């Protein structure tokens, strides 16, 4: 079964509804929400009535735009984004859960992310972080906004030496530096990680966030996915987009992340919807591109024939093999090359004899 259909079955199994949409969207949607797009470059064109349209660079915005009541949906669509100086058509699958996102719903979406990763490769890891913890910490310590982005970059790159240099230059206090370095070094299974982060944040403004992560771990245990979930605060990218728990998934067989998601309540507020939201996307293109190139054979059997052979007889032979579940193709003998692409090669006469016709 293809990955797409396995994911569809998984999401539908949890009561998510398939969301289908047009490839076109009004340009204004993106102009108003450009902060939430990974790139400002869109493929735009004018509709027959003069209105400006764009090929969708993003699925989530369109889903929220059309949402007027709580809903849980999944999708399998193409998005159009620039990559390496060219526009590309990129397949994306994912889910969005819009409404009241309580602890259970949050955990369910993360558990679904785990199960989606398991559809790609059983050997997977989902890293979880909470972006509000870092913002709360920087806020509480009143760290100058000049250094904030550098600190966030250092967290994202696990660059503890950079934090040390800030401490040396007395731009960050020693204990704030020690906290940030601990945060950089923290990479633990969620069940252990939450204990550590609770200890680290005791009596600080970050404590409720650590407590929330602990509760989340408990619910994830109920979904039996906790073994694969790790706590990692280097996951800070796209802090513009997300506001709470965020996560990113990887599998052993693919060297880059294949799934990412999180809480994005801010986007709903901005679009005037009275709901919370959480969701994730699977990078279908990354999975597809890292599939091993070497398929052993194009088919089981190639039957070679010439202009002199009877087409009627050939049809009977081919049908016999195909009915038996053998991947077979008839090939003109003069066009036949690369016999190594087939498990077996026979002339029409041999195939007829072998089939007992």
């Amino acid at each position, binding site marked *: 079964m293809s990955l797409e259909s396995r994911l569809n079955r998984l999401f539908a199994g949890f009561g998510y509804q398939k969301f289908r949409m047009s490839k076109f969207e009004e340009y204004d949607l993106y102009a108003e929400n450009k902060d939430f797009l990974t790139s400002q470059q869109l493929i735009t064109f004018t509709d027959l009535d003069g209105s400006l349209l764009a090929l969708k660079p993003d699925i989530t915005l369109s889903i929220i735009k059309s949402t007027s009541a709580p809903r849980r949906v999944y999708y399998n669509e193409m998005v159009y984004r620039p990559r390496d100086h060219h526009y590309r058509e990129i397949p994306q699958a994912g889910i969005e859960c819009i409404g009241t996102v309580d602890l259970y719903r949050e955990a369910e979406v993360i558990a679904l992310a785990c199960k989606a990763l398991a559809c790609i490769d059983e*050997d997977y*890891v989902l*890293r979880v972080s909470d972006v509000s913890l870092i913002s709360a910490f920087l806020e509480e310590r009143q760290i100058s906004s000049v250094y904030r982005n550098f600190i966030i970059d250092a967290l994202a*790159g*696990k*660059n*503890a*030496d*950079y934090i040390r240099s800030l401490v040396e230059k007395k731009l960050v206090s020693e204990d704030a530096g020690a906290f940030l370095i601990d945060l950089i070094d923290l*990479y633990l299974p969620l069940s252990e990680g939450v204990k550590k982060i609770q200890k680290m944040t005791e009596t600080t403004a970050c404590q409720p966030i650590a407590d929330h992560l602990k509760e989340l771990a408990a619910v994830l245990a109920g979904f039996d996915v906790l073994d694969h979930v*790790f706590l990692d605060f*280097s996951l800070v990218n796209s802090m513009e987009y997300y506001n709470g728990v965020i996560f990113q998934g*990887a599998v*052993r067989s*693919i*060297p*880059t*992340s294949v799934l990412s998601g999180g809480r994005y309540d801010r986007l709903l507020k901005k679009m005037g919807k009275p709901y919370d939201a959480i969701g994730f996307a699977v990078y279908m293109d990354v999975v597809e591109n890292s599939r091993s190139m070497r398929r052993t054979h194009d088919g089981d059997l190639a039957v070679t024939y010439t202009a002199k052979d009877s087409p009627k007889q050939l049809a009977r032979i081919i049908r016999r093999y195909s009915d038996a579940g053998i991947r077979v193709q008839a090939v003109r003998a003069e066009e036949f090359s690369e016999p190594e692409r087939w498990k077996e090669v026979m002339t029409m006469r041999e195939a007829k004899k072998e089939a007992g016709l």
Partner: protein
Amino acid sequence: MINVALPKGRLGDQVYRMLAEAGYRCDEMLDKKTRKLVFENAEHTVRYFQVKPTDVGVYVERGAADVGIAGRDILLEYEPDVYELLDLGIGKCRMCIAGFPDFHDDTDRPLRVATKFPHIARAYYEELGRDIDIIKLHGSIELAPILKLSDVICDIVETGSTLKENNLVVHEEVVPVSARFIANKVSYQFAHEEILRMKNALAERRGK
């Protein structure tokens, strides 16, 4: 097994010696006559690749190598999405703006900057709000101001002797550079202990 991308040349040799001391030996690496590019040690705990220094980030970002050694200049220029786990404190130098001693910036027109590092140069001058014209070269950068191809150069300065011989001086320092131990973000998850062991071994031996 951990895959290590080492930059060809002096820096790579220096880091290899640090790793060999820490138990990641592979004697074949020392054979200067060999044309092999991949070296694996007998215990199969480590495999080294020797690659062009500017390519180390690519090998690590795309997971062909789990870890690698790259100069800070390369990381700033190409911005690979990797973890920068350790400053090795070796291969120290400075990214500088250099020109003739009597160079005076005429803000009436864009400044012509010759460099191998267009991204770093652009970011530096953008922050200063100075309009520049980048002239991307692949080597012999010092020649550019001499032939009036550019007003200044943005390049790595180690001892400053090449500048001196060409009658050029440093005008501004852009950023200090040293070698970094980098890791692929997914390898960090799946080979966590092996990568940390190597990082700690290097941390104990790093130059100060």
